[in-house]
C-alpha cells in the first residue's frame, strides 16, 4: 500500500464526509456521501477486499444513494436555511467529537501498530469470501434475506398512499 495512494484517498473520504455534514443542500450532501462511499471502496480495494469494494459501489453508491436522491427529489427539498441559534450545540458537538476521535484514534493506532498477518494471494477473492459466507455464516445469510423481505414489505406499506389501487 503506497502512501501516495492512501493519503489522497483518505483526505477525499474525510473532506467529503465533512461536506455531507455541513452542506446546506440535501442533494449536495448526497453527492458528497457518494464521494465518501467511493473513497471507502478504494480503501477496501487497498485492503485486499476487491469483492467488498465492488459491492460497496454497487449496493451503496449505486442503489442506496440513488434511493436517497430519489426521495430528495420526490419531496422537492429546498436548501436548509442557515442554522442559527445553536452555535453552542454545533461547536460543542464538534469539540467533543474531535476529542473523542483523537482518543479513539490513539487507542486504535497503539493497538494495531506493527505489521499484520501475512496474507495469502487469494485473500479477499470472491471464492474465499463466498466460502466463508456460505459455510460459517450460512444462517445469518439466510436471515438477511428475511430481513430484506421484511424491509421491502415495510417500505411498500409505509410509503403507499391510502388511495392507492388495490386497497379496500
Amino acid at each position, binding site marked *: 500500500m503506497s502512501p501516495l495512494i492512501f493519503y489522497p484517498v483518505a483526505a477525499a473520504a474525510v473532506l467529503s464526509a465533512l461536506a455531507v455534514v455541513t452542506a446546506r443542500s440535501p442533494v449536495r450532501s448526497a453527492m458528497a456521501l457518494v464521494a465518501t462511499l467511493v473513497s471507502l471502496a478504494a480503501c477496501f480495494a487497498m485492503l485486499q477486499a476487491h469483492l467488498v469494494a465492488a459491492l460497496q459501489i454497487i449496493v451503496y453508491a449505486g442503489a442506496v444513494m440513488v434511493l436517497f436522491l430519489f426521495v430528495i427529489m*420526490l*419531496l*422537492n427539498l429546498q436548501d436548509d436555511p442557515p442554522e442559527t441559534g445553536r452555535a453552542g450545540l454545533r461547536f460543542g458537538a464538534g469539540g467533543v467529537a474531535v476529542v473523542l476521535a483523537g482518543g479513539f484514534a490513539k487507542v486504535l493506532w497503539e493497538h494495531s501498530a506493527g505489521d499484520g498477518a501475512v496474507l495469502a494471494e487469494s485473500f479477499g477473492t470472491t471464492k474465499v469470501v463466498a466460502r466463508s459466507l456460505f459455510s460459517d455464516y450460512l444462517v445469518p445469510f439466510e436471515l438477511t434475506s428475511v430481513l430484506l423481505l421484511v424491509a421491502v414489505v415495510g417500505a411498500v406499506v409505509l410509503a403507499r*398512499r*391510502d*388511495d392507492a389501487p388495490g386497497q379496500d
Partner: protein
Amino acid sequence: MSVISKDPALLHDGDEPDNRAISEIVELQMGPSHPATHGTIKFNLKLDGETVIACDTEVGYLHRGFEKMCEQGTWTQTIPYTDRLNYASPLINNFLFCEAAERLAGVTVPERCSYIRTILSEMSRVADHLTCLGMSATEVGAISVGFYMVEAREILYNLSQHITGARVTVSYGRIGGLTRDLPDDFEERMRAAIAHTRTVMGDAEKLLERNRIFIQRMAGVGIISKEDTISYGITGPLLRATGVRRDLRKDEPYMMYDRVEFNVPVGTKGDNWDRFSVRFEEVIESLKIIEQLLGQIEPGPVKVDDPTIYMPDKAKVYNSIEGLMAQFKIVIEGVRIPAGEIYFAGEAANGELGFFLVSDGSGRPYRVRVRPPCFYAMGALAQMLVGGGIADIISTFGMINMIGGECDR
C-alpha cells in the same frame, strides 16, 4: 376548456381527504414552445407524478383574424386565405369555399372541373393523413416511419406544385372553375404516386400496426365516448373512431363522391388506436377513390362559360371590349353573388369543414364564417388527457391532428 379530475378534492386548498400532499401536485406549462405543441397551443397541466389530474387547454397563440381578413377583399381574394386554414390539405379548403360560393351564386361547374376537384381533394386528404400518421409515429419515437410517410407526402406535394404552381399556397380553385386544367402527364404521375403511397402504407403496417410497443402506446389511450364526441361537435376521423359512421362524402354527397364506391372505416372504442386505424384505412380508401375517378374523367372545359362569374380567356380580354370589361369588373368589383346566405360543409381531412357565407349582393363577402374541424376537438382535448400520463398527451394530441391555422379565432 378546463377539465378537472373526477376527484375535486385534489385541487381544493385546505383539508385533504386523502393524504396526498399539495406539494406532490406539480404544475407544468406544456407549450407553446414545446416540440409537440407546434408553437400554437399550451396545456396548463397539474401532474401527480406522471399522471395528468387536470388540464387546461389554451388555444389562440396563432391569431390572424381569418374571418375578418376574408371580409376585406373580393370573393376571389378570399381564396388564398383558405389555403392557410389547414396547411396540410389546402386544396380541400380551396374547393369547399368555391363550392359554397358557387351554390350561393347558383352556378354549376362543368363535370371535368368537379372531377378534378374530387381527385385533388382526395390527394390532399392522403397527404394530410400521411402527415398526421407520420408525425404521430415520429412523436412516439418511430422516426423512420415518419420519414417514409413524409417522403410519400413529398411526392404528392411535388405533384401539387406541378399542377398548381405551389406546394402549400395553392389557390387553385376559382368560383366557377379552376385556374387551369391538369397537366398532360398528371394521370401517369398520379398513378406512380398512388403506387408509392401503397408501398409506404405497407411498410408502415409492418412497422407499426403489428408493433406491440406502438399498439400499447395507442390502444386504450385518449378515450372519449360516442355521446361526448357528438356533444362536443367533433366530426371526421375522431367521430368515426367512436363507431359513428358519419361521412359527408357519403351522407350528403357533393362534387363527384356519388359516382365512386368507397367504404367509411369506423372504430369501436374511440381511443387513439381506433383513430390511427381509421386514418390509416382512409388513406387506402382515398387511393381507391382516386383510381376510380381517374378512370371516369373525360376531357372538357374546367370553368363555367359565364364572364360575370369567371374571367374570360386572355385572348378575349386583349381582343374584345366585352372581354376587357368582364375582366375589369371581376378584378375591381369582384364576382357579384346575389344577396343571400348559405352554409355548405364538406368532409375535409379532419372532419366537417363548413363555410357560412353571407352576401349582400356586392362583389365582397359580407360575412365569412368558417367551421374548422380541429377547433372543436380542442374543447374535448382536456377530457381525453386527464387521467393519462404525460406520454399519452403526445399520442392523443398527435392523433387529434391539431392544425394551428384552423384554431385561429
